């Protein structure tokens, strides 16, 4: 098949449609799914327990203290939100650049984004000392006559995350409608027909509808891209807006955005490999896709590495005693292990991707991506703790050790992510049908000349 091809042409459009709608309609791989679901539900239960403990006893159950007033909560918030960036980037950015290979990935990437952002969004609520007053962060006519404070990066967060969540949902759903219609038409059982029928809002593929739809979808994509960039830049301001050494840096916005994309693409790769094997989709998620994912991963990874290098240069160039102190702490201090293992998991392992076979072997890509996810988690830990535990005054220097509840809440959110995600791939087409069909059609076109 010619290099331009992404999908093998030895398959029919109809075949694609049957295959993909087949996943929800007559579900293959029930056992594997059930096993995954059980594990996920257990984690979710752990999450519920942790939250109950948290709300009844207070944030004191975590390891935080003064000066380390922020740790796991904010740290995992940033981590999850970072992961949540890949979906929109893949579908929106690559849609605009017309890279057709994204068509096999965008759907589950977006689905992943939704639930990752939910996990992220729940943390700022959990970490409040008095979560029941969360609504004070919204401007509403209160009897107090007091309003939110819009100079605060935390206030910005709320708006950024909510916007990002709603936009992702709408973008995801808009793209989903035609596939839901497809599933509706393939469905035999009444129940499925009604479910997909209502969900697809009665979409009938009218050409005029398609044209309006394309207008909407493309414009949404066009604004979604700057949104993604803005959201994580803004999260970085949560740190950069302070004066704390190791945080107060203009490098942070791009540094965070790239890191986000990096971790996001890693998770996308993991899911791609997982689904590919789970539902036997080798004909749609081809080695070519994995190869391209590997390349993107490598690229974003190297850009993030640049961030590390420049951070050090920045400090040396400024010569600020406190920044220097913090940098030395990061490289040699009590939490140096986070820094160095972050470097290892993020960048050392990554180098394997220069090697073509590594990119094209599913399990290799899976392992490398997993290591990136761990690495980025460590990086966020490092950024938070090493800056806070020794800030300006020697007399306020302290230490931080995560408590059991820190960990349980964190692993709990993984369940909070997996459960709805598994349900999604169970009940809705997890690969964009009409877009893959289009790709296939265009390729066949190209062959017939």
């Amino acid at each position, binding site marked *: 098949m010619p290099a331009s091809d992404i999908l093998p042409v030895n398959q029919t459009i*109809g075949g694609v449609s049957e295959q993909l709608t087949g996943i929800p309609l007559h579900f293959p791989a029930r056992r594997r799914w059930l096993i995954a679901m059980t594990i996920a539900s257990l984690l979710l239960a752990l999450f519920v327990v942790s939250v109950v403990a948290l709300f009844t006893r207070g944030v004191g159950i975590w390891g935080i203290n003064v000066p380390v007033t922020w740790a796991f909560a904010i740290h995992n918030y940033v981590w999850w939100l970072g992961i949540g960036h890949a979906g929109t980037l893949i579908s929106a950015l690559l849609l605009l650049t017309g890279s057709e290979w994204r068509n096999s990935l965008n759907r589950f990437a977006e689905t992943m984004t939704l639930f990752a952002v939910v996990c992220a969004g729940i943390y700022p609520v959990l970490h409040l000392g008095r979560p029941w007053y969360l609504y004070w962060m919204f401007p509403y006519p209160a009897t107090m006559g007091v309003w939110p404070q819009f100079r605060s990066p935390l206030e910005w967060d709320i708006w950024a995350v909510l*916007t990002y969540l709603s936009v992702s949902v709408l973008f995801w759903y808009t793209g989903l409608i035609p596939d839901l219609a497809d599933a509706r038409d393939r469905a035999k059982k009444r129940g499925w027909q009604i479910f997909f029928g209502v969900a697809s809002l*009665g979409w009938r593929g009218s050409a005029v509808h398609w*044209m309006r739809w394309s207008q909407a979808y493309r414009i949404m994509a066009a604004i979604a891209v700057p*949104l993604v960039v*803005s959201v994580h830049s803004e999260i970085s301001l949560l740190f950069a807006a302070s004066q704390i050494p190791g945080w107060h840096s203009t490098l942070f916005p791009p540094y965070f955005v790239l890191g986000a994309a990096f971790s996001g693409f890693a998770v996308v790769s993991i899911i791609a490999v997982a689904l590919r094997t789970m539902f036997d989709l080798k004909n749609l998620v081809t080695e070519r896709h994995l190869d391209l994912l590997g390349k993107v991963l490598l690229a974003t990874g190297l850009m993030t590495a640049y961030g590390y290098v420049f951070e050090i240069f920045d400090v040396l160039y400024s010569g600020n005693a406190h920044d220097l102190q913090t940098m030395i702490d990061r490289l040699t201090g009590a939490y140096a292990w986070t820094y160095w293992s972050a470097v290892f998991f993020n960048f050392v392992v990554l180098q394997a991707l220069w090697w073509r076979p590594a990119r094209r072997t599913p399990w290799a890509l899976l392992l490398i991506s997993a290591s990136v996810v761990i690495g980025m988690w460590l990086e966020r830990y490092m950024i938070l703790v090493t800056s806070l535990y020794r800030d300006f005054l020697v007399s306020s220097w302290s230490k931080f050790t995560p408590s059991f509840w820190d960990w349980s809440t964190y692993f709990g959110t993984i369940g909070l992510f997996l459960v709805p995600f598994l349900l999604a791939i169970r009940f809705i087409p997890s690969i964009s049908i009409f877009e893959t069909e*289009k790709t296939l059609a265009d390729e066949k076109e190209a062959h017939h000349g």
Partner: protein
Amino acid sequence: MADASYGLLAEFRNENELVLAAQSARREGYTSLDAFTPFPVEQLAAPLHFRDTRLPRLGFLGGVFGFVSALAVQAYVSWAYPLNVGGRPLYPFSAYGVVMFELTVLFSVLFLFVGLLYLIKLPRLNYPVFNASRFRLASKDRFFLCIKADDQKFDSNSTAAFLKNAGAVTVELVPS
């Protein structure tokens, strides 16, 4: 004029045949056309005379709305209870920027989505074409051209004949 019917639905094997058929129908003078395809087919824009930009303008409108309301709310807050926050200015427009941008995007997308549904009149669960026996293939791998009954030139027999000549695999009269 057969009021009882919605129109004639002709099935084609691929988008090129559909596009050709649509163009010839247009040449024949049919005006009330529609097509149904499993995926967007740009070439149909010309024969179907589609050049509507209301949706993009709606999106822009939404953006402006979000931008202005964000600015308004934040400025009002400072005005309603002026407090000295860390010696920062009472109206820190640099700080307003973030929320202004976010709401611009949010409302623009909201307007686009609602506008889309409004313009294509969805949700509409029950629609005549669904009566057609083979229509369910329209979302799979078949391409349908529809000449509606309200067309001046519409005549169940002659129009059907015309469609057959245009290369339709099947032609079906859709009851309304």
